[in-house]
């Protein structure tokens, strides 16, 4: 039986296994430092489709197919897909999986979607409800720009705290038995809003949520920062990571050199013109499901606290003068 530790952390009993991971990314991500880990790099921003939205669904679906290929599973083996994206009504995921004939739960956690899906899938597998689940998330620079910002060809500058939405989709297969790193505990996050209003500074909006979840995870499990190889946040970007470090220190925890962020890993911040780094559901999804899993298989990483963070805003609420509520879900992955 799984056990609730403290108020927030679930210690898993059967410890679901991450059997395999796959990711497909766009050209800019393919020019970044993690290029060799991705399964495919799509140069065409339309990915052979007619619209950016369809392109996003296409790369998500292709990442899913790649995952099945890599894990040697048939779609009939999969009991459940848990997936989400940034688009209104979560359409990238629902159009991607509309004809795969597998039960599907659509999730919205903004950029925290990947750890949200892994949190839920782990608990479902641990409880014996399902045997195999696919957790996936996607984002596309062009579909996100037109929904959240301006038309692509509109001339504008980015502010010094802005981030760049990653074009990419990542998927992992979780199962009750097999080989691979295990998910040993999960900490679903609370919604935290520290009053940040600037939608071009999502790193600062999300770092209090990341801090809260990390502190609660450590408290609940009785572990310290030293027990982790890295604490891998979703997409706080360089500025958000600075703020997270400050917040942890103010709360009496020195993160030392353990903080790592998917948004700063996926791009070369100085050369690629992405300001503070990557963002979008596809960022942490693609980094975790390829690069991080690869580091596990090589034995370089043995215990990672994966904390994907999401800014739960909409352009409408921001225009109405609202602040940005944020969330972070933690998944402890052990070799």
């Amino acid at each position: 039986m799984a056990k609730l530790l403290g108020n927030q952390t679930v210690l898993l009993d059967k410890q679901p296994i991450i059997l395999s991971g796959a990711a497909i990314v766009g050209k800019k991500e393919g020019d970044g430092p993690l290029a060799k880990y991705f399964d495919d790099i799509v140069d065409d921003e339309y990915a052979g489709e007619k619209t950016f939205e369809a392109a996003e669904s296409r790369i998500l679906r292709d990442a899913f197919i790649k995952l099945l290929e890599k894990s040697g599973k048939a779609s009939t083996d999969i009991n459940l897909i848990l997936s989400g994206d940034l688009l209104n009504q979560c359409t990238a995921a629902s159009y991607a999986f509309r004809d795969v004939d597998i039960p599907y739960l659509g999730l919205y956690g903004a950029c925290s979607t990947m750890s949200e899906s892994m949190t839920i899938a782990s608990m479902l597998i641990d409880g014996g409800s399902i045997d195999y689940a696919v957790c996936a998330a996607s984002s596309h620079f062009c579909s996100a720009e037109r929904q959240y910002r301006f038309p692509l060809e509109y001339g504008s500058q980015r502010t010094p705290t802005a981030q760049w939405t990653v074009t990419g989709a990542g998927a992992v297969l979780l199962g009750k038995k097999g080989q691979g790193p295990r998910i040993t505990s999960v900490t679903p996050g609370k919604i935290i809003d520290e009053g940040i209003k600037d939608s071009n500074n999502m790193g600062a909006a999300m770092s209090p949520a990341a801090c809260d979840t990390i502190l609660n995870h450590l408290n609940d499990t009785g572990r310290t920062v030293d027990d982790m190889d890295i604490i891998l946040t979703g997409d706080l970007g360089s500025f958000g990571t600075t703020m997270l470090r400050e917040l942890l220190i103010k709360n009496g925890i020195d993160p030392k050199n353990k903080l790592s962020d998917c948004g700063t890993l996926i791009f070369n911040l100085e050369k690629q013109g992405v300001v503070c780094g990557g963002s979008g559901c596809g960022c942490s999804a693609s980094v975790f499901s390829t690069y991080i899993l690869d580091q596990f298989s090589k034995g370089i990483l043995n215990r990672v606290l994966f904390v994907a963070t999401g800014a739960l805003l909409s352009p409408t609420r921001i225009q109405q003068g609202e602040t940005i509520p944020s969330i972070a879900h933690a998944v402890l992955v052990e070799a």
Partner: protein
Amino acid sequence: MKKKITKHEYQAMVEEKAPGSHILKDLLFAFITGGVICSVGQIVMLIFEGFGADMQTRASATSIVMIFLGAFLTGINVYDDIAKFGGAGASIPITGFSNSIVSPAMEYKKEGYVMGVGAKMFLIAGPVLVYGIFSSVVAGLVYFIWKQVM
């Protein structure tokens, strides 16, 4: 999380730590970009003058040419790069206005000519038009009343 800092303190922390814009660099790049665009406009105007056009014709013809250039550079995916470099230097001149109308027209073509291009074309330029026209009416009224009184 034990509340070690308040919302207010956090916002102050963010403000203090947030990287700022490079104001001098931004101003310089905007000056260069805006200056180049205006110089091109001046050259176009001189050409029309060379053809013997009167002042009003010259001004209108130059605007038309500059609007076309803005639209053309947007269409070939260049104007956004100019604006990335030049900021306000690229968005304030009439070429930037052209860019703000052509870019949504291109972007929303996928949603059709009515609900896409038609409805979204003035997404960015709309407020400029609304308040531009409104303030010109107010200015006109003030001018009119001033003339009556004086």
